[in-house]
C-alpha cells in the first residue's frame, strides 16, 4: 500500500511537471483554436468534473459516455461541413475515448456488478447505447466527396472499423 501511495505521489509530480508539454504554438494560433473549440472545452471540463464525482464503474461509464457523445456530436458537425481535417481530429479523439476509456470501464464494471441485479440492466443499457453511438459515429464519416477522399479521413475510418469488433454483443 505504501509503495502504491508513494508511486502515486511520484506520478503526481510527473503529471504536473509534464503539463508543460511540447513547445507551445504562437498565441495567435492558440487563440483562434480556442475560439473555435471554446464550447467543446467547457463541455469537457464539465464532463471531467462529473467523472471525478462518479463513485463506481457504472457511474464512471455513464459519465465517460457523455464525453464520448460530445466528441461524436462535433464529429458529426465536421462531417456535415465536409471538413476533412476536423473530421480526422474529432474521430481520433472520439476513438481514443472509446478505446481507452469507455470500453475498459464497461469491462471492469461487468466484473464487479452482479449479473441480474438492477444495476446490471443499467450497465447493459449503457453498453448498448455506447455501441449504438459508435455505429452512428462511424456511419456519419463520409466515404466519398472531397472529405471522403482525404487520406486522413480514410485512415481514421480504418481505425474505427477495427474497433467496431470490440462492440460485438
Amino acid at each position, binding site marked *: *500500500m*505504501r509503495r502504491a*501511495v508513494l508511486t*502515486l*505521489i511520484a*506520478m*503526481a*509530480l510527473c*503529471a*504536473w511537471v509534464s*503539463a*508543460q*508539454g*511540447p513547445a*507551445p*504554438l504562437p*498565441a*495567435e*494560433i*492558440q*487563440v*483562434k*483554436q*480556442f*475560439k*473555435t*473549440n*471554446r*464550447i*467543446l*472545452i*467547457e463541455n*469537457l*471540463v*464539465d*464532463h*471531467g*468534473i462529473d*467523472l*471525478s*464525482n462518479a463513485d463506481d*464503474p457504472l457511474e*464512471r461509464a455513464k*459519465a465517460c459516455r457523455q*464525453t464520448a457523445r460530445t466528441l461524436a456530436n462535433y464529429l458529426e*458537425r465536421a462531417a456535415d*461541413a*465536409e*471538413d476533412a*481535417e*476536423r473530421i*480526422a*481530429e474529432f474521430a481520433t*479523439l472520439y476513438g*481514443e*475515448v472509446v478505446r481507452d*476509456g*469507455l470500453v*475498459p*470501464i464497461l469491462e471492469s464494471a461487468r466484473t464487479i456488478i452482479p449479473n441480474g441485479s438492477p444495476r446490471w440492466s443499467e450497465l447493459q443499457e449503457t453498453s448498448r447505447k455506447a455501441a449504438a453511438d459508435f455505429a452512428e459515429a462511424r456511419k456519419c464519416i463520409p466515404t466519398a466527396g472531397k472529405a471522403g477522399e482525404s487520406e486522413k479521413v480514410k485512415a481514421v475510418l480504418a481505425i474505427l472499423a477495427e474497433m467496431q469488433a470490440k462492440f460485438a454483443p
Partner: protein
Amino acid sequence: MNCQVVQNKIIALADPRLIPDALREHLAGCAACRDWAQQAARLERLLEGLPAPAAPADRKAALVEQITFGAPIITRPLAMPAGQRESRFAAFLQRNAVVIAGLAAAILIAVGVWNLFPRGGPKPDLTQSIPDDPFLKKMVARDLALAKADTPAKRLVVLGGMAEDLSIQARSLARVASADELRDLARWYDKVVKGAIVKQAEKMHGVTLTPAEVKARAEMLGALTKQLGDTAAETDQLLNSVPPDAKPVLQKIADAARDGQKLIGVVELRGEKDKN
C-alpha cells in the same frame, strides 16, 4: 354524459382544477370520474411546479448592462434598398454618437451583433478553423485519465493537472484573447479547484489509513497546495504586463488558487481534529 366524455372534457379545460357546474353533477355520482379529476388536478399542480435549473443571472445582467450602456444593437441588415438602409444606419449611429466612435461603429457593422456577445449565437465556422488543437487534446486526455481514476488520490492528480492546464492557457492567451474568453477560463478553473479538487481532498479524509498512508496523503495534499500556490504566484507576476481587461480575470484565477489552498488546509485541519 358518459364517463369518457366527462374525462376528456376535464383535461380539455383551461385548468382541470376548476370544474364547471355541468360536470360537477356527474362527478357527484361517479367515483371513477372523481378519481380522474383528482389525478388531473394533481398533474396540473406537478406541472406548475416543474423544476428547471436557475436562470443564469450573469447572462441576464450582462445583457442588461450591454443594452443600457453598450454599443448599438444591430441585427443582420434587413432586406431594404441600399440607399434607405444606409440612411437608417446613419441616423441610428447619430442617435448613439455618445457611445460609438466612428471606427468602432464600422467594426460593429462589419462584424455583426453576434460578436458583441460571443458566447453562443451562430456556431463557429469549422471550415475556417485550424485543426489539431493541443489544448483540446489535453482536455480530452484529462477526461480519459479521470475515467480511469478510481480513488480520490488518483483523481486529485488529474484534476490538479487539469487546473494547471487551464491556468496556463489563460496566461498564454492573456494578451490575445477577449475578456469574455478569459473569463470562461477563469470560471472553469474556479469550478475545478474549488469544486472538484476540494471535494476529492475531503474524500481523502473520509478514510482511515495507516500512519504511513496518512503521511503519504499529507505529502500529496502538500504538493497540490504548493502547485496552487505556484499558480497564484505566477499569475500575479503576469498582472502588470497584460491588457487592462485581462487583469481582473487573471486576478480571479490567482484568487481561486489561493482559496483552493485555504480550503484544502481547512480540510486537513478538520482531518487532524477528527483524528485527535
